[in-house]
């Protein structure tokens, strides 16, 4: 970055020695942050490091326990987001703050709606929205409902929401987490456009590459503490990574060469509808063999979610075959698939993976509660259930130890994922499906999850990996299948893939295999 738009003499945001406590827990412990006009400033830290807490204070959602916040050189106290908005701060949250059944226009103007008398003036609102979207080159359909538009579009709506309120300082919380490489490139271009216009941007992320590509400066936070602010041009990704986690990190996954065996999963000409009743998987073919990891690369919404739901029995397809070791599990129940060799790490661990109110021990037997030795004559056997849990907690390093009887909801995200992995790996099925297995996890937990996925492959299991993290697909997969518009459009050996080609194919362009 050339820092060509940065005006080092004009600090727009200064956060001084910010401390934020929640009861006994110190989420931010003396953090400093200075952002200048025209600057893109990254905030780097692992999950739970306190990045979002810091930004929520800057946006008036939380109040600092102590410390000062200065905007444009003036010290201000923000009681609610309204104050932040008035001070020219806008925030795009990681989980979009959009009202699903409302239109784009309604979402953008909500809270500052133009009126004519007592009536809402939606014509003016629409006109304003179109105008501002054209001014910043963020084209959208003002009349579309949020539930009908893509994630990338939804993000544009979020950015427009901030701009509509006259924000000069934009906070973007994990903005790239569900975008394609092309969309990420677009977003970075948008960001550059905005700073050129005199805006300042704070981007919260744990993706090092994006920081290198977009940011001018980077502030690193570790476990609530301020570590450093660095000039991004002066450091490389490894420096950033070790500052973030406090130790050296290896990004490489060790994977021995091995020849794949028989076909375990064979999906033939699969068709199915999405929840709106529109065909989303359109004649998809896919094979996964023993001892290999097949990664599905694709943009969210191209049928990968539905594909997995059909294989696991959660969704009925319209036609096709799903053979697992030769048995057709197509349109059978989830328990039928499980009995014939399908296990899975679901995308949303809190929704599909765990019963959060249940104890760890009960979650560990979620598919096996009716089987010996966990139940005899339909009566649960607490002894064996507890022993199983103790062994799993030990073997899979689920923390805190001794948590057999604790509700799964009380664990951290990483440990929740470990519970699921422990369960699915010990189910010892021939096919393991992992969907976004590391989403929202920190670096340590990611390494751990990757290790277990590769272990399953090495043990001769077939692994189907679906992930929106292209890096993850590229580093783990033996074969990368690109999904676009409900079909596999390319199948590339893992070693030969390159990010740009993949990105193009994911977007429907590029060469076809």
């Amino acid at each position, binding site marked *: 970055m050339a820092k060509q738009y940065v005006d080092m003499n004009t600090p727009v945001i200064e956060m001084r020695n910010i401390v934020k406590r929640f009861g006994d827990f110190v989420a931010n412990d003396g953090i400093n942050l200075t952002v200048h006009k025209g600057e893109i400033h990254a905030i780097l830290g692992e999950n739970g490091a306190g990045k979002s807490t810091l930004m929520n204070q800057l946006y008036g959602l939380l109040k600092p326990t102590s410390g000062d916040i200065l905007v444009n050189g003036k010290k201000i106290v923000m009681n609610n987001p309204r104050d932040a908005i008035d001070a020219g701060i806008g925030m795009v949250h990681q989980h979009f703050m959009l009202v699903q059944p409302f239109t784009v226009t309604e979402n953008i103007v909500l809270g500052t709606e133009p009126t004519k008398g007592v009536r809402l003036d939606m014509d003016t609102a629409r006109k304003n929205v179109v105008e501002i979207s054209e001014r910043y080159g963020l084209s959208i359909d003002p009349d579309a409902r949020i539930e009908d538009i893509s994630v990338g579009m939804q993000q544009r709506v979020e950015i427009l929401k901030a701009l509509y309120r006259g924000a000069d300082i934009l906070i973007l919380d994990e903005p790239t987490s569900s975008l394609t490489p092309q969309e990420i490139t677009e977003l970075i271009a948008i960001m550059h456009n905005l700073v050129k216009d005199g805006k300042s941007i704070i981007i919260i992320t744990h993706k090092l590459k994006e920081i290198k590509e977009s940011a001018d400066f980077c502030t690193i936070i570790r476990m609530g503490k301020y570590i450093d602010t660095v000039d991004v041009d002066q450091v490389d990704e490894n420096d950033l990574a070790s500052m973030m986690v406090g130790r050296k990190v290896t990004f490489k996954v060790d994977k021995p060469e091995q020849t794949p065996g028989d076909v375990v999963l064979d999906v033939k000409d699969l068709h199915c509808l999405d929840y709106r009743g529109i065909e989303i998987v359109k004649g998809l073919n896919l094979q996964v063999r023993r001892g290999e990891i097949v990664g599905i690369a694709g943009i969210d919404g191209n049928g990968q979610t539905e594909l997995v739901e059909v294989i696991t029995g959660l969704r009925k397809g319209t036609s096709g075959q799903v053979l697992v070791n030769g048995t057709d599990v197509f349109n059978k129940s989830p328990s039928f698939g499980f009995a014939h060799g399908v296990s899975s790490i679901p995308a949303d661990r809190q929704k599909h993976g765990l019963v959060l109110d249940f104890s760890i021990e009960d979650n560990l037997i*979620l598919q096996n509660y009716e089987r010996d030795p966990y139940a005899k004559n339909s009566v649960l056997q607490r002894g064996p259930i507890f022993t199983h849990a103790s062994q799993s907690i030990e073997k899979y390093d689920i923390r805190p130890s001794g948590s057999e009887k604790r509700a799964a909801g009380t664990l951290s995200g990483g440990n929740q994922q470990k519970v699921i992995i422990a369960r699915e790996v010990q189910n010892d099925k021939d096919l393991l499906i992992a969907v976004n297995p590391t989403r929202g996890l920190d670096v340590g937990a990611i390494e751990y999850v990757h290790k277990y996925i590769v272990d399953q492959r090495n043990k001769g299991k077939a692994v189907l990996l679906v992930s929106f993290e292209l890096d993850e697909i590229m580093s783990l997969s033996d074969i990368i299948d690109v999904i676009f518009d409900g079909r596999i459009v390319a199948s590339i050996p893992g070693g030969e893939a390159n990010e740009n080609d993949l990105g193009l194919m994911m977007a429907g362009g590029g060469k076809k295999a």
Partner: protein
Amino acid sequence: MTRKKSFFDFIAENRFIHILFSIILGFLVGAIFLAVMGLSIGAAYGRLLGSVTSLKGFSYVIVYAVPYVVAGLSVAFSFKTGVFNIGAEGQFVVGSMAAVCTGILGASLPKPLLIPLCFLAAMAAGAVWGIIVGVLKTKWGINEVLSMIMFNWIAFYLSNFIAGIPAIKNEGTAEATKNISENASMLFSKDFIKSAGLAPTANWGFIVAIIVTLIAWFIIEKTTLGFELKAVGSNRFAAEYGGINVNRSILTALAISGALAGLAGALQVMGMGKRISIFTSQEGFGFAGIVVALIGCSNPFGVLIAGLFYGALMYGGSKLNLEGVPTQLISVIVGTVVFFIAISVIFNKFSGIHFGRERGANGGALKAADKKEEKK
């Protein structure tokens, strides 16, 4: 985290203490009402206490409590399995009517045969009433709260209709059914009641209530069925992912819950009631079951105690007139208790514990689940 425990921690961490606290507040609010109306607090509460502490009084309390306990178990069971059985009222009504019909038409059968037959008929009727709602929900996605409200009224009018059929209707002028056969009655023998000085309606129902409490607890806590139903209740998506047939579970839960409410109806008519009148409004045993389940934290043993408490208030309340105090004082007290149970979260807030331990009685979780379902 070694922080000194505050008063609020103490209340928040102990469900039992918390409910006790709510009960005390309930009586306090009742006392304020009495004071405002210029009535004697001592006389009212003295009468309330006095009427339930004698042997005879206490036997009345138990007689009153039996249907409340079992109806409470019905609702508690539904809460545990993620359904809000606001339809217990209707299931209770069809259950009691089925028991009465069986008890009248089967008069020739011997007691050991007729009594279980009455139970079975009532449970079957209640279960059917529950299953209908379940089928409407699982097959057509009809909101169960809505259909339960409808079926409560359908049950009510159906019961009134059946009570008017010549074979069932009282020969006299009373707008009610005949009395059930002696062989279907669960009353203690007259001699025993007289010699022991019990309430004239003292009956075996409480034994059944205790057995049912134990069975309900066993099913919920110890069996694979309970595991399955609770999993569906807490997170139907994870349950489905884990291979549990969600629709079947919902139907099972509603059938069991309905059968329990139906049984409560049978216990009412085979013990205290003997017959069913043609009513102008719903009697409210099922709605009382909701309150009992809430006070009992949806825990079967808690429900047993809460049912006794509720029975005591109902019986004691019926004696308040003697002091010139309106019976409705009881509604105010119970309403206040439930109100404070509802806002129990504030104790959690003060103590820094952000998640309640019991999430059984949560209609909200249910709604959330429903909403997700729409999207499919």
